[in-house]
């Protein structure tokens, strides 16, 4: 048997290949079942039966989160998945390092807040608006403004090669946060903007669907994610997607093939920003209250970690990464509850917070390092990117 066939058989064990080998109707059916399960996920009777039996001890380890509302955690996972999908277009497809991606989320969130809140200064002080707008109407504006800020940032920087973009984007996110924090002019500083509008819709009994209950928000974000996935998949398989791959792999060569590199980098940047803004507008629709504290730098880093952890350039990877960075700390907290993990330890008279939630960056740092050493292409890699990575490693450290 040649090594090639052996290799092929080993590949067959790969879950993805087995899925690909299934006949198309079966594949579609499997996807439908999976998606239905996703919609059911915040149903108590359903998720309470998910988990692992604990081998030694008594009972079982739940997969749901005991520390906080499961639907709330899922919603948060949802908008992080959206963020990761957006950054994946920028970083994974076009190969552009954006360190301030959360800035676009902030643009989206503030746009919605300013336009939908009756206490927005646009209404109370400046009389730009007669009355608050409905949430749904502000979402396209939020997306457009995020996109515009992406273009404004990208225009001067994307012509340059190198690390300028990383620095400028980092600055952008911080500027938004600092301006929001210190300016009373419109964003109202730390006091923020209360009474932000919710998405529309009422149950048959006349109660609004989108209020305090998290589940409908989760359904909404899940639906949006599915739509965004279709959009990105189509883009990735189009001429635009091929141009992105070429730019990422060798920008000079791409230019020599006739790819207008600047234009396509700007597109990647704008599309990523639009998805980031969409995520922010969804979050604001639920949050009720928007202030600068939400937009700390950690969030940008968390999104970056999500994309790298999952595997840059892969939609599955972005979803997995976005899910893990939110879900894992929450779940660890419930594991902590099951095993009686303390939230604080006392050394001398210093109290140290050791709850998994506050340690999550330590946990992610460690996890990321481990993943990057043993699986640099990420948990759910894009095959092409994995090959590029090998090619680059060859340059850095020649084998033999």
């Amino acid at each position, binding site marked *: 048997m040649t090594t090639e066939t052996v290799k092929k058989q080993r590949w067959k064990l790969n879950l993805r290949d087995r899925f690909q080998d299934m006949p198309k109707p079966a594949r579609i059916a499997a996807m439908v079942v999976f998606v239905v399960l996703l919609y059911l996920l915040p149903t108590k009777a359903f998720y309470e039966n998910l988990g692992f039996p604990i081998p030694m001890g008594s009972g079982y380890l739940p997969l749901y989160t005991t520390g906080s509302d499961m639907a709330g955690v899922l919603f948060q996972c949802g908008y992080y998945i959206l963020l990761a999908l957006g950054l994946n277009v920028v970083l994974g497809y076009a190969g552009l390092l954006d360190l301030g991606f959360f800035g676009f989320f902030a643009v989206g969130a503030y746009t919605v807040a300013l336009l939908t809140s009756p206490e927005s200064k646009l209404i109370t002080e400046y009389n730009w608006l007669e009355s608050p707008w409905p949430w749904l109407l502000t979402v396209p504006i939020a997306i457009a403004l995020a996109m515009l800020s992406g273009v404004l940032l990208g225009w001067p920087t994307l012509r340059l090669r190198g690390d300028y973009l990383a620095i400028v984007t980092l600055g952008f996110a911080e500027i938004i946060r600092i301006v929001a924090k210190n300016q009373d002019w419109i964003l109202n500083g730390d006091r923020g903007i209360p009474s932000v509008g919710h998405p529309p819709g009422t149950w048959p009994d006349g109660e609004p669907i989108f209020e305090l209950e998290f589940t409908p928000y989760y359904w909404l974000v899940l639906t949006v994610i599915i739509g965004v996935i279709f959009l990105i998949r189509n883009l990735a398989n189009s001429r635009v997607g091929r141009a992105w791959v*070429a730019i990422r792999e060798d920008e000079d060569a791409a230019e*020599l093939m006739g790819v207008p590199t600047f234009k396509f980098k700007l597109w990647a940047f704008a599309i990523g920003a639009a998805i980031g803004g969409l995520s922010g507008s969804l979050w604001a629709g639920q949050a009720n209250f928007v202030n600068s504290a939400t937009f700390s730098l950690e969030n940008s880093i968390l999104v970056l970690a999500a994309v790298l952890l999952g595997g840059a350039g892969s939609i599955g990877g972005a979803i997995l990464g976005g899910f893990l960075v939110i879900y894992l700390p929450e779940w660890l907290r419930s594991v902590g509850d099951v095993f009686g993990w303390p939230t604080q330890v006392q050394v001398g008279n210093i109290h140290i917070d050791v709850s998994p939630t506050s340690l999550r960056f330590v946990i992610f740092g460690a996890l990321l390092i481990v993943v990057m050493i043993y699986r640099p292409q990420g948990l759910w890699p894009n095959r092409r990117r994995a090959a590029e990575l*090998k090619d680059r490693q060859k340059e850095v450290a020649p084998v033999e």
Partner: protein
Amino acid sequence: MLLEIDDITLHYGRIQALHGISLHVNEGEVVALIGANGAGKSTIMRAISGLRAVSSGAIRFNGEDISKVRADLRVARGICQAPEGRGVFPGMSVQENLEMGAYIRRDSAAIAQDMERVFGLFPRLLERRKQAGGTLSGGEQQMLAVGRALMARPKLLLLDEPSMGLAPMIIQQIFTIITEINQQGTTVLLVEQNAQQALSRAHRAYVLETGNIVKEGTGADLLHDPAVKAAYLGVA
């Protein structure tokens, strides 16, 4: 005259790499550019393909000054370069690399035809059709880079050291293919360290020294020029 370079200068930051270069390429020719390392050969190629902007002077292609035209639009006008150091897309398969070469074209039937032609010129690439570009051997990558440049159906093909790092046998093959491509109607501007081969294949050639053209003539003339012999052909 297909390409006419008129007194161009080019700077990398404060370093001047080209000091007033003038040269031309007629339709249907193979023109070689030889010179020592660092003479500025690749820089001239970059100036023509648009990867680097010239500081002064004009580059005329079919009579139009293209020195301010964006690189991707020069490809559309019919200039295509196989870059030095190959520059194949490492994660794309051989076939995908070739398809990228035809990125500016939309005539898919003719593209398929041209791909067959490239596979005819380089049967090795056909064998490796599905293999990732980054995992090809150096020689195979060089073939891919040349084949990919052909996929744009250029009027002017720029080849920067196509024989770099290849075994003598393969060098022979590559030059034979260059001649073949030329006979099929593509004009070629060729940068080469392998002056012997380049001069014997080229209609005309230019000798470049530290950013200046110091000699020009037919390939045969330069091949027998004592100074060129001493400097580039390794014969005293």
